[in-house]
């Protein structure tokens, strides 16, 4: 149970996963936000107003998957670092996972980073495709990682440091 371990269950994740048809069409945001807490910066972060918290601030976010373009603007704005973007169409075999990162050192595009799951377990080394700074006060980086498609719903963090240079080694 999430409330005992901090790890969302398959059922929890099911409830926030976009429909397969939408995932197949390209990048889309997934809010792994399961608890009713008073918080709503994500609604303001989205340039397309695709995230709603209604009727009051304690509701969990609802993403309009049709309006969402998977731009990732919400990722660095979520105080809980709970929003991810997944693009299943990144390549023939890979998906792109965008995640929030607040540790040092920050990886560079082209390096390989060790991908971690929701328990911090290592899933392998994956190419960093893009790194975007959240800005002067925000300071949260959004890291885009190319992962094997079957791991798109598993990779949710990277290990800070130890980045390898060079091409993907699976």
């Amino acid at each position, binding site marked *: 149970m*999430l*409330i*005992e*371990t*901090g*790890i*969302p269950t398959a059922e929890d994740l099911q409830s926030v996963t976009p429909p397969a048809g939408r995932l197949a069409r390209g990048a889309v945001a997934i809010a*792994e*936000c*399961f*608890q*009713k*807490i*008073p*918080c*709503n*910066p994500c609604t*303001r*972060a989205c340039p397309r107003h695709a995230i709603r918290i209604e009727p*009051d*601030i*304690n509701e969990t976010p609802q993403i309009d998957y049709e309006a969402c373009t998977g731009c990732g603007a919400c990722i660095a*704005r*979520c*105080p*809980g*670092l*709970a929003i991810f973007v997944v693009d299943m169409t990144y390549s023939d075999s890979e998906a792109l996972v965008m995640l929030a990162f*607040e*540790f*040092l050192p920050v990886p560079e595009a082209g390096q390989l980073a060790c991908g*971690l*799951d*929701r*328990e*911090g*377990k290592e899933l392998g080394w994956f190419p960093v495709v893009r790194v975007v700074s959240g800005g002067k*006060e925000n*300071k*949260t980086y959004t890291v885009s990682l190319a992962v094997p498609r079957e791991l798109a719903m598993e990779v*949710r*963090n990277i290990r800070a440091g130890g980045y390898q240079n060079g091409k993907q080694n699976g």
Partner: protein
Amino acid sequence: MIKDTEILVIGAGPAGLAAASAAAFLGASVLICERDDAPGGQLVKQTHKFFGSEKQYAGDRGIYIGRRLTGAVRENPQIELMTNATVLGIYDDGIVTVLHDNRHLKIRPQKTIVATGAAEKFLAFPGNDLPGIYGAGAVQTLMNVAGVRPAERVLMVGAGNIGLIVTYQLLQAGVQVAGVIEAAPKIGGYLVHASKIRRAGVPILTRHTVCEAFGTDQLEGVRICRLDDQGQKIPGSEETVACDTLCLAVGLTPLTELCWQAGCEMAWIRELSGHVPIVDENLETSVPGLYAAGDVSGIEEASSAMVEGRLAGLAAAGSLGYRPEQAKEEILAARAELAELRSGPTGGKIMAGLARMREAGKTKGGVFVC
């Protein structure tokens, strides 16, 4: 010499700073006494982004919210900010005494807002006095204010928001965290904070407690064990965790000494984490003209402390006759914001505590009914 002021605010944390700005906004002149050498209270070490809504600067990191509140106070000519100023006593004749830069000072305010905040709670177990057993907030101060890495390897006690947040911040400072243990069967803090540290590989063990701490001159390790459904230690479940630091994040307690001394009606309310002054809907205590805002009136979040401070500041200035219509309107808005913050499941505990506090007020001999 006695220094006169319209409104005295005690404490320059989120509640006190917001109170001062709100009172000055209506036109009152304000003096803030802060015991530390810098304003901001505990916001100065909150590197994480705050929850809440835009009205409470949600999404911004606590440190920047602190700077914003402090900046507003410093820029306002109606507000005087006195640091290194510890309030010592509030007396029957309305005089407040202060130790300022090692000198004794007397202040005569027309209204006083107590915004003294809270202190970290301690935990009883053998060996709990060893150096290396620190409040989680203390470790946060060392690493986020002083920039000192306070430990090599930490065991965190308590999976409330402070325990979870400080664990994450320890990782950011390059400190190893062996795990978070929590006596309750459930994680008490926000689950997004819990998931963040889990993703970084830190285990969270609910139904676990500290049996004893050991070490010769300082902490070397901790014995922990599992708890059963009744919260009793399960024999044979003990494990040893090697660590040089044990962080206690087992809750806060309101710093109410000045309220007691001023003669406020007090009540012990579990949901508000200790003895609190009984306050009315404007946060005025049973002592007329004395208000209590923020953690001192019940442990809650910094976002609600800011709104409480604003409410008390508005009410105090309004009662002095400053812009009564505007005051009334702003007071209603602040109350609505508080109600919104407390409306969800996580606000239920606070709502229950406030209801009990009001009930306690009614039964106190009818002297003070709110």
